[in-house]
């Protein structure tokens, strides 16, 4: 059974009553219509949240870089400069839309749209909590890989269509970098799928626990290495420093979006920041326990039974806790991503390819084999229980 936000809401009595009353009042079965409305509202909220996170991402980036370089950062618009991203948005929308005369107009216009829809479509399977997930597809993580790869096409097309040498170089580099790092990322994901026995992101998260030693990062030594492979891979897939070669401003002006102005540029930037958020969320769901809260507080049973709250409130408090856990882990990773950008220098293009093909890919293949052997020999126990059992057996022997 697939969890969606609709199936989560339909377990409450109020929802059922509302459906019955509305059906009677309108004279037809409104279940499908209400489902659509719920989906639409949830999607709308999530898109706006993603856009706000993208906007605040630019703010956080400047503020953290200012912090690292002992500067002030944006501090004029709003309290602590928090509304800077809105001002930027207004500025972007007022800018003239310049299309180079030699450019391929059709591709030039369609590239930001491809990037934006590719990133937005990945939001559908982001496991925010066990109930507030838009939809929990059975093919979740594989779907995410597929839709996410559209961004690579968009970057290449955007670079190509501008008919500028910088853009084209940036686009070529971006596309080849994204596809190269997809190989170690895919292999790391497959090793997680091996351990959890399912591709749905809720299944993956549910097979971990709330405490760090139950997370997949500490499940066995291979996944511990796999986490770092995956994290480096996601940095490169999102074109973040030290892998921001497609937009290396010191050599390629601005990379694939050199010729883009105004809102089209803004959409590229929004897609990039939202993609960083999505990828951080995925890494935290795969390796860091995702939305899991310690002591199973997340399913709300504790609040209902021990504190005597009604089922609706108790369950929703649990969901909110899960939401909080997910966002905490994701934003911590987001902070690390920004921190890395202002700490490490940019890599050279040949080092980038060497790192991907000669280090990460063999390591991830080795991890995959190691995980398969681990699942076979230790029947999917984590290394803590294996050590504990070995210790108990040794103690019993003496």
């Amino acid at each position, binding site marked *: *059974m*697939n969890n969606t936000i609709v199936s989560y809401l339909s377990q409450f009595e109020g929802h059922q009553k509302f459906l019955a009353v509305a059906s009677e009042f309108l004279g037809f079965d409104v279940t*499908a219509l209400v489902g659509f409305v719920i989906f639409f509202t949830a999607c709308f909220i999530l898109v706006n949240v993603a856009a706000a996170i993208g906007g605040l991402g630019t703010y956080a980036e400047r503020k953290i870089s200012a912090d690292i370089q002992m500067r002030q950062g944006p501090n004029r618009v709003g309290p602590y400069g928090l509304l800077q991203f809105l001002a930027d948005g207004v500025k972007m929308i007022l800018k003239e839309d310049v299309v180079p005369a030699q450019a*391929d107009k*059709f*591709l030039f216009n*369609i590239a930001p749209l491809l990037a934006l829809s590719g990133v937005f479509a990945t939001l559908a399977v982001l496991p925010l909590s066990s109930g507030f997930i838009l939809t929990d*597809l*059975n*093919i979740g993580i*594989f*779907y995410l*890989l*597929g*839709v996410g*790869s*559209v961004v*690579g*096409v968009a970057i*290449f*097309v955007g670079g*190509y269509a501008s008919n500028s040498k910088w853009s084209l170089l940036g686009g*070529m580099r971006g*596309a*080849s970098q994204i*596809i190269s790092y*997809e190989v170690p990322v895919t292999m790391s994901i497959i090793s997680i799928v091996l351990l959890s026995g399912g*591709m749905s992101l809720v299944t993956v998260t549910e097979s971990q626990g709330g405490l760090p030693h139950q997370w997949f990062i500490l499940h066995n030594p291979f996944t511990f290495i796999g986490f770092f492979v995956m994290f480096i891979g996601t940095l490169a897939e999102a074109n973040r420093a030290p892998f921001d070669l497609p937009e290396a401003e010191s050599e390629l002006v601005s990379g694939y979006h050199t010729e883009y102005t105004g809102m089209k540029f803004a959409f590229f930037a929004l897609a990039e920041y939202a993609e960083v958020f999505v990828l951080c969320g995925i890494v935290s769901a795969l390796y860091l326990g995702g939305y899991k809260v310690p002591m199973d507080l997340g399913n709300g049973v504790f609040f209902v039974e021990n504190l005597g709250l009604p089922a609706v409130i108790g369950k929703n408090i649990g969901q909110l806790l899960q939401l909080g856990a997910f966002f905490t882990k994701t934003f911590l990773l987001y902070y690390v991503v920004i921190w890395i950008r202002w700490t490490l220098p940019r890599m050279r293009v040949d080092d980038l390819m060497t790192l991907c093909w000669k280090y990460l890919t063999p390591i991830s293949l080795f991890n995959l084999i190691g995980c398969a052997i681990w699942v076979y020999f230790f029947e999917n126990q984590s290394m803590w229980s294996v050590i504990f059992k070995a210790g108990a057996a040794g103690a019993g022997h003496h």
Partner: protein
Amino acid sequence: MFENILFFISSFLVLGGATMVVLSKNLMHACIFLLFTLFGVAGLYLTLGADFLAAAQLVVYAGGVVILMLFGIMLTGGTENKENRFGIEKIPGMGSVKTYIVAGVSILFIATVVLKIIANYMRHYQQTDLPEYMTTVERIGHSLLTDHILAFEISSILLLGALIGAAMIARPRKS
């Protein structure tokens, strides 16, 4: 309801994309329209209940084949390469308007006749009801490991052959 909407969106993408692949003179545009067509086919797979195939279509085609094609176009001189070694520009489109009209009419005629014949057989196939939205991943996995395990292993050899062969052919040579 949603199945029908998805079907119509997908079939619109498939038909429109395929038509534009045929008609567009610019190779880059054709490639992007091919991408839309492949999205449409993925949507059709979804309506047929093949969710894993739809995602595989996205992963392999949208991420792989289309980027490969785009790289191939760039490596062979972009879209500007229209001349052959005789210096004559050969734009697609063979024959004249008359040929197209005659061909179209005859295609319609043949299609009508063939459809009339096939339709009798089609009537027997009723849509089998799937009880719920069922996942195909487990079934495909089981099938790949039991009935089709030889095909699974041989496909790895096929891929190895493709990798070695293509890398050998495409490798830049000293001259």
